[in-house]
């Protein structure tokens, strides 16, 4: 018990340090700007523009859906899944987006720390069920859908950030 508390304190120490160093307003601004940047990056990928939003793609249930994300920890978990999927994609375009998600998750942690509700960082997830099959059989669909849903999720997060989401 004691070890767990100590470990958690040590784990959060860097974030507390950064939270003190970086003004919270700057962190919030950077978070929003980074979300906009990722959204623009996805828009800038040519083959994602022409995808119809009306068409629903099935069989990719491992990709998070477009549900409202109301808490910072939930945002972090969702982004972690997206990051894992993007890292698995062989396309070079998404590598930069994966890095951006890494930064975005760090910013969410900072925001949570500033709200005095730090949460542990989502560790590496287990292999998503169906990801390997999807990557092998339907790479294009996977990339298009994951980017599309990520874009929607980010825009949803952007709106939520204006309302000071909870932990």
């Amino acid at each position, binding site marked *: 018990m004691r070890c767990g508390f100590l470990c958690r304190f040590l784990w959060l120490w*860097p974030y507390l340090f*950064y939270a003190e*160093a*970086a003004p919270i307003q700057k962190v919030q601004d*950077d978070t929003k*700007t*980074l979300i*906009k*940047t990722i959204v*623009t*990056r996805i828009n*800038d990928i040519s083959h994602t523009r022409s995808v119809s939003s009306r068409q629903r793609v099935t069989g990719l249930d491992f990709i998070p859906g477009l549900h409202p994300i109301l808490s910072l920890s939930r945002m972090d978990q969702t982004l972690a899944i997206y990051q894992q999927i993007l890292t698995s994609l062989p396309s070079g375009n998404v*590598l*930069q987006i994966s*890095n*951006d998600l*890494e*930064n975005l998750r*760090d*910013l969410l942690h*900072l925001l949570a720390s500033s709200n005095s509700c730090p949460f542990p960082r989502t560790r590496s997830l287990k292999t998503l069920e169906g990801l390997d099959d999807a990557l092998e059989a339907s790479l294009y669909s996977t990339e298009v859908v994951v980017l599309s849903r990520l874009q929607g999720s980010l825009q949803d997060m952007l709106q939520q950030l204006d309302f000071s989401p909870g932990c």
Partner: protein
Amino acid sequence: FIYVITAFNLAYPSTPWRFKLFCMPPNTTYDFLLPAGIPKNTSNLNGYYEPLLEAKFNSSGTYYSNLTSKTTFHCCIWSEENENCSVQADNIEGKAFVSTVNSLVFQQIGANWNIQCWMKEDLELFICYIEPLFNSSFKNYDLKVHLLYVLPEVLAESPLVPQKGSFQLVQCNCSAHKCCECHVSVPAAKLNCTLSMYLKITSGGVVFQSPLMSVQPITIVKPDPPLGLHMEITDSGDLKISWSSSTLVPFQLQYEVKYSENSTSMREADEIVSATSLLIDSVLPGSSYEVQVRGKRLDGPGIWSDWSNPLIFTTQDVIYFPPKILTSVGSNVSFHCIYKNGNKIVSSKNIVWWMNLAEKIPESQYNIVGDRVSKVTLPSLNATRLRGKFAYDAVYCCKEHECHHRYAELYVVDVNINILCETDGYLTKMTCRWSTKAIQSLAGSTLQLRYHRSSLYCSDVPSIHTTSEPKDCHLQRDGFYECIFQPIFLLSGYTMWIRINHSLGSLDSPPTCVVPDSMVKPLPPSSVKAEITAKIGLLKISWKKPIFPENNLQFQIRYGLNGKEIQWKMYEVYDAKSKSVSLPVPDLCAVYVAQVRCKRLDGLGYWSNWSTPAYTVVMDVKVPIKGPEFWRIIHEDSTKKERNVTLLWKPLMKNDSLCRVRRYVVKHHTARNGTWSEDVGNHTKFTFQWTEQTHTVTVLAVNSIGASFANFNLTLSWPMSKVNIVQSLNAYPLNSSCVILSWMLSLSDYNLIYFILEWKILNEDNEIKWRKIPSSVKRYYIHDHFIPIEKYQFSLYPIFMEGVGKPKIINSFTQDDIEKHQADAGLYVIVPIIISSLTLLLGALLILHQRMKKLFWDDVPNPKNCSWAQGLNFQKPETFEHLFIKHTESVTFGPLLLEPETISEDISVDTSWKNKDEKVQTALVPLLLATADLEKGSICINDQRNSASFSEAGSTKITCEDEGRRQPSVKYATLLCNSKSSAIDDEQGLINSSVSKCFSSKNSPSKDSLSNSSWEIETQTFFMLSDQHPNIISPHLTFSEELDKLLTLEGNFSEENNDEKSVYYLGVTSMKKESSVFLTDESGVLCPFPAHCLFTDIRILQDSCSHLVENNFNLGTSGQKTFVSYMPQFQTCSIQTQKIMENKMCDLT
């Protein structure tokens, strides 16, 4: 029976690895009963903490020739510490006996081996090394060594004797030297288990079997020899021996250091330490030290490693420590020195320090460390300057004024390397650049950029992290290294520094931390457009922001007139949402170029590149600012009481027309006709008739937007033209390009608006120049190209609200004339000479003239010889009609050879003549030759002293017919007309038209006119008809009513008529001395014919010219003069004739 001798360890507690294995034949041993091949009671090495680490058997073998096969030797274990050999003998029945035998017995009669067994440092391999030491005869047999071992699964505190079948056999590798090595892999989990083993050595059919031994592998670990042995002299003058410890062994080691000092006296020592270094005090200059180190487990059993390779360290007579220092700029370093002079060490108090043998280091920087060691500290070091090939500073340790040649080397490197990073506009790549110029002097060094990435942002004070990564950088042509991070973490902090690796050490530049997001150089704005807004007249520049970054941006705009060297003007926009800006520009009708760039509004990052330039297009922006300034030239026609006014203006400039004038419109306003407009088009001149008292005109400029609002008015007023307010006007030439005009004004009740200054070259109707001058100006500088030899006329017009006033006109420079007279004193000498010369010439001409006159008049032919004059009484002529009637009756008309053209000339005809000596009154009459109407030419002359008429339909016809062509004769008629016009009405129109052509003062008011005198003198007209080319010349000669007026008005010939065709002399068929020709120089219509021309030469031209008509003017001022019967002849010549004539004339002259 097989006899097995088993070693027993209980006899060697202290150094149990120092065992000897002695073996001897069975008949010489003690008989023991052992179990079948397997000793039951094995030696338990674990019972002692002094482990059995090595079994070393020093055996001396004896060859026994009578041994049979399968003979088994009894062996025992012997160590140096215990000379008694423990022997365990097993018999077949399995009973064992343990006995102790003096080892000397085995040494004398048995065989022996050197055997070492240990665990390697990696704790994975158990090794036994066997070295046979048999007699030479015994070595001839093959040696086979097998190690049999048991490694139980379970750790037993008291191991049991393993069964025979449980042993595993390992064959040992034997080399040519009969040395064998046995390897047994020991799992890490069984390091603490008891390994039971025995050796079975077969050689020459003899089997040597060692006693059963047991050992825990962890207790016999033998480390590798220490590495990295190093010796250096410490700051305190001690010799520090250091080495590196092994990282593989799981326990701490102890080390044994063996060193020797070879100086004036030999010194050896052997010390055991637990640290990885050892200090040897009082290092001596001029000595050499040899050191070796080995290690062993510090706590618990273990085996000493082998000795490391010996390291020799030699000290010089002067010891610098450290001998070389590599450091960075600004740091503090210290050198120590021990100075041995001869055999005596110099006291540290007497040591002084020098730098580069050039400057003594201040003593305040010295420090005494003991009696022998001196220390100097060099603070705040500057970068080492390259001295030829030497890239270091030499630090000398000296004794007063004596320095040893050895020195310490100090390398100071400027490691303040700036690392500049820039993130691209797509936020995917960060490029970092750094220069190597500051560290070029350090040869043999390598540079490396190392970085550490933090998850978010940078810390306030960047520091060098122990965990860093290198980054590949590539040297560019500009001497910069370039490192590219791609992809990047936008908000992570990249702490970077440059590591300089050198043989003397490594240096790190001060670390710098950058966040890629704050180093963005955005893409330039796109879709930049520039235009001049219509009707508003502002330069509007619009753009689109780049897609990245998402931060708010500020914009910078530069714009200027397009050209080779653009003078840029800057404008900054701090509104991130702005997409365009409108700027005032002075010239709305010029091409502007504009560029835009952007940067983050918070100031982070860099300015983007300038966008591609955008250019404006010149187009109409507004209605013209103003209409053109204009002036007028008035042509007065006093006869019709009309004035034609020509308005002049310059094309409107772009700045005023905004930007292109399509047309001009002249707007009139008079009291009677009101207001009306006339479209002038693009012309800059317009003429209209000024008929009313007051006429106001305005010139408007019109472009595609509309007409100008502010326009200039000019009121032409008859009454105002007499208002004179300019009292005086003076012109002073400064030089050929500038003239000053000044004037004085008188008081006036009229509202003076401005002046118009007009100037031109006097007597030339070339370009009139004018300027508008404000009314307040009293002096004005005209900048123009003035020709000094010309006279200029300057006119100053006051312009009132009510109209144009009376101008003040001057025709010369005021001051210039005075100066010219004063300056040109030479003229007073030259002018009289010229005048006298001219007088003499004139006199000569007069004399010549009189003589020629006499000569010519003597040769005047008798008119009676003319055919048409046959029967006429010239002494008493009746009337003109009679004269010609008679003539026409006898003369037939020939074909008219005159070309269809009009020749007009002034002639004077004496109204009456009776004889050649009688004076007759003459008048000037235009001679009109209308060749188109000359098929039947007629001349009508009214001789009523005041009138003469030429009638085409008249009955009086003059015909000159060559009756006898073979007889050269001159037939002529003399027409004498009065200047009064005739009363024949039907001829009037023709005459009028002819007169209007010839004497139109409007068309040629002043050019090439006959001089006044030419019209005042009496003139005579002669028609000389060639007998060889008889033609009828019947010009219409009449007098219009206008003639007198024209004559009184000093009418001139029109230039056009004069220039269209020249009149030439065709020649005289039989001139001889009968006829003479006089030409007036003033007559522009006549070819000047030199008086000295010979008529014989002129005759040549008869063939080419069909007619010759000449107008002869006799100089004179009086209206009456003695008439000379003479017939001048005129005719137009063809071009060829004209050329021939000209050539001939030149020959004549």
